[in-house]
């Protein structure tokens, strides 16, 4: 079934969206939340399990101190209060990839609560209130067999790998976000992207979205424009890239608007986001069958972080993002406008890392906001999801600085990297991108250009040196761009006696 949708402008003309975002982030601890199994991604199936994370009869959990510390870090960075005393709770529901058929989580006593943060969209700052950040554990992973392309529907059976079961998760929940309708989707995207940067800066997660270590659920509801009565919300799951967050929110706004304007009712339900088709489909309806029967986890004792510990962690936090932005702008010598582009383009952390690798701020900005931003835009990905690392940028720029590449060739190297053609050296070799630094080859090309363009030489000789530009163009063309233009001009000028 394809749900009818309204045009976004029509939807926003009639309704105001209200959002809530739940982000799950996998921590980068060495061991799982409640046992000593490793957390490495991509290990062979069921090689990182033990009685505890397999939920074997008799096994008992013990809390990972670093998991708690990371939760407190995240809480503090989001300006939350840190609980003086809190407990884990069991969230009871059956699912084959959940070993104990309850998730060890936190319920009404989260470790961090009542915080806020800010995101910038189109130069405007929006404040986002944080409801809570709490600790929990991940589930195993099911592979569905026998159906179409790994889908659950039509599958004959499933295969479960519990390596991921028990990896620590922090769930960060916003309060309702109400921003001008036309900004809602972009704010949602900016928020998730900001969280990614923050978590990286805190060093608590690798935030590999391609590996599912940051996952977003978007709650969306609509209320008639100007009304204060909240509508029924849906929870869209499986929204796992920045662009998807934006698209899924937009889609839900247009879908719900279509339902409501046709006189229908929005169902309170879980919906699934489909990256390929760009739509959400109905999951399960929230019904009385969904009664999680939370109660305090009797196998774990309460966590009561001392204020000394909390202050120690606070002192170890990196500087606040807003202060840091001011400092970086000054260090880099960017204008306000340039800085805004950097932030809107989600390039801040990438540029920081690139500059740390020895690239000038101007060059780092040129690549990330130029060629790479263009590629990201075309593929609908975020800069950080492109597969190009700050190290790649630094290595390419180093070759430009050494005169082995010019900007035009460098762009081709990036193109090759984006297309997965191998390492920088392999791409340069395969595409034949090295600059010709051999003077004799250049002089031969210059001789050919002079011979082929007597009229231009005539003009230069008759006192119009600017006409030499055409000769440089001819030489560059002859060299198929693989020459340093400055060098060509130098040699040509000498030849022509200018």
């Amino acid at each position, binding site marked *: 079934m394809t749900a009818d949708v309204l045009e976004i402008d029509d939807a926003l003309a009639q309704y105001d969206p209200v959002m809530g975002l739940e982000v799950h982030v996998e921590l980068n601890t060495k061991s799982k939340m409640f046992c000593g199994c490793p957390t490495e991604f991509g290990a062979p199936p069921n090689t990182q399990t033990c*009685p505890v994370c*397999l*939920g*074997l*009869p*008799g*096994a*008992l*959990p*013990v*809390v990972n101190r670093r998991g708690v510390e990371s939760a407190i870090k995240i809480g503090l960075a989001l300006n939350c209060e840190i609980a003086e005393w809190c407990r884990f709770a*069991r969230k*009871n529901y*059956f699912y*084959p990839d959940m*070993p*104990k*058929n*309850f998730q060890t989580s936190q319920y009404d006593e989260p470790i961090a609560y009542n915080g806020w943060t800010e995101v910038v969209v189109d130069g405007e700052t929006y404040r986002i209130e944080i409801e809570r950040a709490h600790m929990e554990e991940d589930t195993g992973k099911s592979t569905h067999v026998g159906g179409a392309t790994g889908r659950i529907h039509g599958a*004959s059976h*499933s295969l*479960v790998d519990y390596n991921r079961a028990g990896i620590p998760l922090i769930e960060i929940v916003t309060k309702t976000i109400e921003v001008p309708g036309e900004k809602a989707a972009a704010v949602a995207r900016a928020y998730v992207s900001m969280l990614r940067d923050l978590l990286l800066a805190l060093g608590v997660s690798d935030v590999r979205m391609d590996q599912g270590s940051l996952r977003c659920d978007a709650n969306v509801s609509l209320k008639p424009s100007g009304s204060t009565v909240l509508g029924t919300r849906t929870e869209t799951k499986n929204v796992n890239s920045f662009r998807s967050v934006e698209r899924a929110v937009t889609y839900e706004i247009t879908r719900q608007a279509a339902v409501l304007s046709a006189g229908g009712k929005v169902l309170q339900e879980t919906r699934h986001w489909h990256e390929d088709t760009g739509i959400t489909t109905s999951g399960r309806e929230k019904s009385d069958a969904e*009664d999680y*029967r*939370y*109660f305090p986890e*009797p*196998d*774990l*004792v309460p966590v009561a972080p001392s204020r000394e510990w909390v202050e120690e962690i606070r002192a170890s936090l990196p500087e606040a993002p807003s202060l840091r932005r001011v400092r970086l702008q000054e260090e880099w010598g960017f204008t306000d406008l340039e800085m805004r582009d950097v932030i809107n383009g989600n390039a801040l952390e990438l540029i920081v890392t690139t500059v740390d690798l020895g690239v000038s701020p101007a060059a780092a900005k040129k690549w990330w906001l130029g060629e790479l931003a263009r590629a990201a835009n075309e593929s609908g990905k975020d800069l950080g999801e492109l597969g190009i690392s700050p190290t790649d940028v630094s290595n390419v720029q180093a070759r430009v600085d050494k005169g082995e590449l010019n900007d035009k060739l460098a762009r081709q190297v990036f193109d090759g990297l984006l297309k997965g053609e191998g390492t920088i050296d392999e791409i340069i070799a395969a595409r034949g991108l090295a600059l010709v630094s051999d003077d004799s080859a250049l002089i031969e090309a210059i001789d050919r250009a002079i011979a082929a363009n007597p009229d231009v030489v005539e003009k230069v000789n008759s006192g119009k040196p600017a006409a030499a530009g055409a000769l440089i163009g001819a030489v560059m063309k002859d060299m198929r761009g693989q020459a340093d233009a400055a060098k060509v001009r130098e040699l040509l000028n000498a030849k022509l006696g200018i």
Partner: protein
Amino acid sequence: MSDLIRKTAAELAELMTSGQASSVEITQAHLDRIAAVDADVHAFLHIDTEGALAQAAAVDTRRAAGEELAPLAGVPLALKDVLTQEGIPTTAGSKILEGWKPPYDSTMVKRLKAAGIVILGKTNMDEFAMGSSTENSAYGTTHNPWDLGRIPGGSGGGSSAALAAYEAPLAIGTDTGGSIRQPGAFTGTVGVKPTYGGTSRYGLIALASSLDTPGPCARTTLDAALLHEAIAGYDPMDSTSIDQPVPAVVAAARNGDVAGLRVGVVKELGGEGYQPGVEARFHEAVELLTKLGAEVVEVSCPHFQYALPAYYLILPSEASSNLAKFDAMRYGLRVGDDGTNSAEKVMNLTREAGFGAEVKRRIMLGTHALSSGYYDAYYGQAQKVRTLIARDFENAYHQVDVLVSPATPTTAFAIGDRIDDPIAMYKNDLCTIPSNLAGNAAASFPCGLADEDNMPVGFHVMAPVLRDDLCYTVGAALESALAEQWGGVLMTKAPELEVTR
């Protein structure tokens, strides 16, 4: 029949130390006894003949090599089937775990093995320890060696019956609401529920996590204390384990001096509903303690009357969640996997087929007590009652050192008597449950036979957290005074079992 099986664990240890018997001989004697009487008693679900003899031989070899061994090295033991032992079938008395062989040892088993204690096999129990009679075992009822027509108590009826039938000198039980103490009382043996957190729960298949406590069972106070010392102590694998020294239980059991000890008789645990023969033996035992120099007073614990209903909310709630993992996906029984049924359907069918009536009853009750709209009235309120009961204990311990009561309102009843009257069955645990709710130490010691039926009566001692030693002090005093009267411990009065082989 070898007289090795009549010896206490302490005596067996002495025989081995002095070279008069080997662990293999002792182990074989007990295996022979099991073969001879267990068809009638049905204390065991699994007998690990090969493993036990191998363990015994290893101890003998180490002893021969002059190694320093733990006090109980080489003594055989019966293990309740609720604790995991690597490679040995572990069912918790349930069909849903039939054939499951755990890939790991519980902390309990690790400690037993480290102490050189020989594990004979796994003992019968009510399914997932839910019951007071072993009638809820999926593998048949255990019979009380004092009267094979009666139940041995539960849930750890298999462990206590094994002691009373001389199939093992030592056993391990687990006590959630009385599952060590009540079978101890019903079989004329000693059963100790250590302080919650004093013994590790790692590898104990959970019934109610905040109540479950593994502990020692034996025929004498000293044997129980020796076993207690071997298995107790901090375990980093159990978050609720107490990181403090083990109370000096062996010293207390050897000393047994109650002179000056303040003993409180709990007013609320007696009277209506208590069998006259039980009350008579209990009061005689209290008299005896007075003669031995204890200062006996009556103490009121007004909220104990709510302990049983509070317990039957807290336990099923935790159990409903603990037992959710038995879903046919990763281990155990799987029913209805015919290639068309969904995982959800297979879970439903398996749990229907794999769980017995009492387990279903309690899962349903717990699911109800935790569900939205009922939580505050049931589970929440029960937890408040738990606080009040803990305060009753606290107040009492300002006045006295230990509290005492009968261990059970009645003696062991006939098989089948209460099987379909859950509330009557639950009332077996009236006296034992408060200590589980508060986490205190408690124990049952034999104090004679009831006049009505000649069945054993248990004397219940409750002591503050980490004062397990006080239980042993009282138990040892009582035991030696009674032995003087009787000319031996109560167990010597047990009828001879017919040997079927």
